């Protein structure tokens, strides 16, 4: 700390009496308000650093390109291979950013400030999950058109449904990824441990997403994939609820 020192003329911001009064008047912020504030903070950091987003995006585009160049169009139709490629790449690309969710809280031990604040642990999970969902959806929003272009997929109105499937899949992945990111961030091999723990739980999300999108790309009606979508939504509910309830156990001493 260098000169000038603290301004003597500056008034005390909160003498203890007024600070006590102010604190008593203040209501603890609601869970949703805290979650949204935390998500805004995380997204602002990601927007300014762009490290995780660009890493995930680069991985996605290169992954789609590699699969494209090793694909033999005379042996397998594009429509058969593209959904699997898309969802496999999406699952791995998501993991690159999910690790960062809690890593940014540990760099300077900012997590301690979150734990000291009068906010529910569920609000912290929700905030991280919202930020992760926006980030993962942004990666997906670019990866889907890239896959459509590379594989020349016949897509029209199905794009909206495909985007909807993407959001549903992202909710499940983000729930699991946020929980495991919190669990593994304190470990020495967090970046290795997170995929090992999270990927098995991604399978119930990736399979219905890939099945539903494959049928849509074949031109089948949405009603034909309703079962897959219901299954995907059910896993979302289960994973989100379980992760929300388990999250406080991962951050308490």
């Amino acid at each position, binding site marked *: *700390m*260098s*000169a*000038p*020192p*603290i*301004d*003597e003329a*500056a*008034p*005390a*911001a*909160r*003498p*203890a*009496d*007024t*600070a*006590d009064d*102010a*604190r008593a008047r*203040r*209501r*603890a*912020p609601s869970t949703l308000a*805290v979650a949204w*504030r935390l998500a805004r*903070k995380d997204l*602002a*950091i990601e927007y*300014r*650093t762009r490290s995780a987003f660009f890493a995930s995006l680069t991985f996605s585009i290169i992954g789609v390109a590699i699969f494209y160049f090793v694909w033999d169009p005379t042996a397998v139709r594009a429509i058969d291979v593209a959904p699997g490629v898309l969802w496999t790449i999406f699952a791995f690309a998501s993991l690159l950013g999910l690790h960062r969710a809690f890593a*940014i809280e540990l*760099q*300077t*031990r*900012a997590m*301690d*400030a*979150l*734990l*000291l*604040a*009068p*906010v*529910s642990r569920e609000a912290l999970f929700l905030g991280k999950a919202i930020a992760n969902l926006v980030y993962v959806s942004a990666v997906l929003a670019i990866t889907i058109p890239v896959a459509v272009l590379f594989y020349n997929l016949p897509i029209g109105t199905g794009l909206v449904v495909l985007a909807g499937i993407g959001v549903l899949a992202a909710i499940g992945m983000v729930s699991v990824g946020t929980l495991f990111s919190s669990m593994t961030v304190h470990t020495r091999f967090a970046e290795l441990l997170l995929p090992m723990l999270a990927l098995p739980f991604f399978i119930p999300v990736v399979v219905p997403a890939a099945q539903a999108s494959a049928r849509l790309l074949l031109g089948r009606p949405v009603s034909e994939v309703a079962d897959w979508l219901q299954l995907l939504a059910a896993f979302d509910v289960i994973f989100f609820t379980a992760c929300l309830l388990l999250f406080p156990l991962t951050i*308490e*001493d």
Partner: protein
Amino acid sequence: MALSPGSGPGYRSRAMPLRASLTPDHRPSPVVAVDALGRRYGVRRALGDVSLAVHAGECLALFGPNGAGKTTLLRSLAGLLRPSSGEVRLHGERLPGTPATRARVGLLSHHSMLYDALTVRENVAFAAALHGMGDEDPAIDATLARLDLAARALVPVRALSRGWQQRTSIARAIVHGPSLVLLDEPYTGLDVAGARALTALLRTLRDEGRALVLVTHDVNEGLELATHAAVLVDGRLVLHEPVAARDASAFADRYRRLTLGEAA
């Protein structure tokens, strides 16, 4: 240009702590009370049978060699670590307590606890928001002004020197008006002017009626603020007494004897 006790509108005599509830014997109840606190990490004992109390308007300077358990004690006082035995009570409520209880603690760690990509104001406003304060709460700008940070409010933390980051950390820790301020090695990385400024600020906080617990290696800096001094060695409190005379050299001699086992 350091703050002196009684110079600001927030001044209150240490003899008259604010809002201090009285116990039946008319002694103010402590802000934080530790009773037979023990903490283990596996088989290793980090703290054993530590008991102390800090009242409003008091500053406890906590000394000890590396690994003595100072940081563990501070984190226990904050409610971030659960005791293996004993208890910590903040305003009479056993920690970790309710969210409202946690809100009365301000922690300045030797880590900055800041987000490098955010500006000074964004960091302080985010901390304030977690305590239910709005982004435009006047306390945010008042706290920045108090720490002479107003001119740097829009500067990203990563662009600041260690000293200015430390000021931002202090602003983050006190913006919500905590009644207990915990400071872990707050002088680390500060130059002489910065250390003097920090001492002036902490003295003001103490004189406002807040309770301070200050962990430091520097006996002179610690005793400049302290109303009480304590020494931790191997997780045990070997000395805890009021600081009557500000004789740092005599205390330093005792501290050396306690920690190094030197002959008197």
